[in-house]
């Protein structure tokens, strides 16, 4: 009969996250397009929209080629929305697996976050390769800031996802409200416009949104001449840490109740 290893707690966590990750991979690749579709579909969407918009006004938006202005915005907002959507379904999705004592909801959350992040990294790489082939001039003056912004978006998106995920276990209707709340994010996060285009008296209605900060700061990081008017690095940091702390605290007090319903 199969022997069972005496595993260290950390090893159990890694094994479980790896197993759920593989499972996620498998269940995504059930049709003919397979896993490739998770990458191809956003790439086509981002690329087409940015390309068209870039061709239409042909030039610069506040010192950035319009194509790249759009690309960074679209990548980040899609990253945010994709991650929130999949993480907020994460606890319920793998509910049957909690029959195994080794599997806890956090493993499911982490595995799904990891999967989603990897997909987005591939999306970014593919867009990069396409730009290279089409001989667009890729210019990144501060790559570290760019990566740091991606990381912050990943963390606060996951945190928001965790909070929604817990809430839906107690109140299923939250799911519908979440859809309603997420829909305008695409339009108010500065994907299609820059905060600099908006009259200053309206800024307070937009600058609560961390995704807007992330997008504008990323554009600033790759093209410093774009400027960072109205957005703040500190706000993004504080929001990221606060949301992560809140999400983990909520998880800690409520996960057992959340899955025993």
């Amino acid at each position, binding site marked *: *009969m*199969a*022997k*069972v*290893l005496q*595993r260290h707690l950390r*090893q*159990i966590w890694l*094994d*479980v996250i*790896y*197993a759920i990750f*593989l*499972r996620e991979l*498998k*269940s995504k690749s*059930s049709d003919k397009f397979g896993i490739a579709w998770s990458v191809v579909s956003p790439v086509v969407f981002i690329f087409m929209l940015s390309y068209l918009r870039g061709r239409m006004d042909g030039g610069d938006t506040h010192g950035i080629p319009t194509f790249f202005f759009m690309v960074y915005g679209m990548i980040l907002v899609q990253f945010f929305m994709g991650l929130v959507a999949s993480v907020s379904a994460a606890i319920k999705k793998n509910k*049957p*697996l*909690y*029959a*195994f*004592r*080794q*599997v806890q909801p956090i493993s499911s959350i982490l595995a799904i976050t990891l999967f989603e992040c990897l997909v987005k990294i591939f999306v970014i790489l593919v867009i990069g390769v396409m730009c290279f082939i089409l001989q667009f001039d890729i210019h990144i003056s501060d790559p570290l800031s760019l990566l740091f912004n991606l990381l912050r978006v990943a963390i606060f998106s996951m945190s928001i996802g965790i909070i929604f995920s817990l809430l839906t276990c107690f109140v299923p209707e939250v799911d519908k409200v979440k859809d309603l709340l997420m829909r305008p994010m695409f339009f108010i996060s500065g994907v299609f416009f820059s905060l600099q285009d908006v009259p200053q008296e309206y800024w307070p209605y937009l600058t609560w949104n961390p995704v807007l900060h992330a997008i504008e700061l990323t554009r600033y990081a790759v093209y410093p001449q774009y400027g960072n008017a109205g957005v703040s690095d500190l706000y993004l940091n504080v929001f990221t840490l606060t949301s992560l702390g809140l999400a983990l605290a909520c998880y800690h007090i409520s996960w*057992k*109740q959340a*899955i*025993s*319903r």
Partner: protein
Amino acid sequence: MILLENLTKYYPSTAGKQFVFENINFTFPRGKNIAILGSNGAGKSTLFRIIAGSEYPNKGQVRTELSVSWPVALATGVHPLMTGRENTRFIGRVNGVANLDDYEKKVIEFSELGKKFDLPVRTYSSGMRSRLSFACCISIDFDVYLIDEATSVGDLQFRQKAKTALLNKKNIANIIMVSHDLSELELFCDSAVILHEGQLEFYDNLKHAIDIYKGL
């Protein structure tokens, strides 16, 4: 030995908290094959799932130094879109099986799925699904197996095979079992726990326990 310490479990409902257990302290003795007896809704399955760690008590804890299986009943954790082999490896990974290839071989042999083992579980009949999950569980070395009417899976031939496998296990491991089939309990168990009105009572002699249970 499995210790239940100050165990409290309730389900919230519109009519207030529905208590299944309240502040229970109990010890499942070592080296016994235990039947859990109780009427419908007494909380047998809940107790079962708490021991297995599939569900968590609202207060208190379960302590044990033994390796306990997951509750083998339905097709637990089997993903319909993955093949039998992929599901087997998933369960093996989660449970920390040392040699996955070897484990895979044992499962395929025991479940008698043959070529179907490499097809998605979606295409299996319900009997085949339970055969797969039973094989996955019985092929791992646990100290305690939690069996929830599991010998009633599959066709007559497989049922016989499951029974023999479990009887063999009895010599090296222990079984905790929930079933309404008394003859089945008599076959596998030697002692019993009666669950009545939120209280647990251990009886060393199964026959004696069944008599009391019938009189309740």
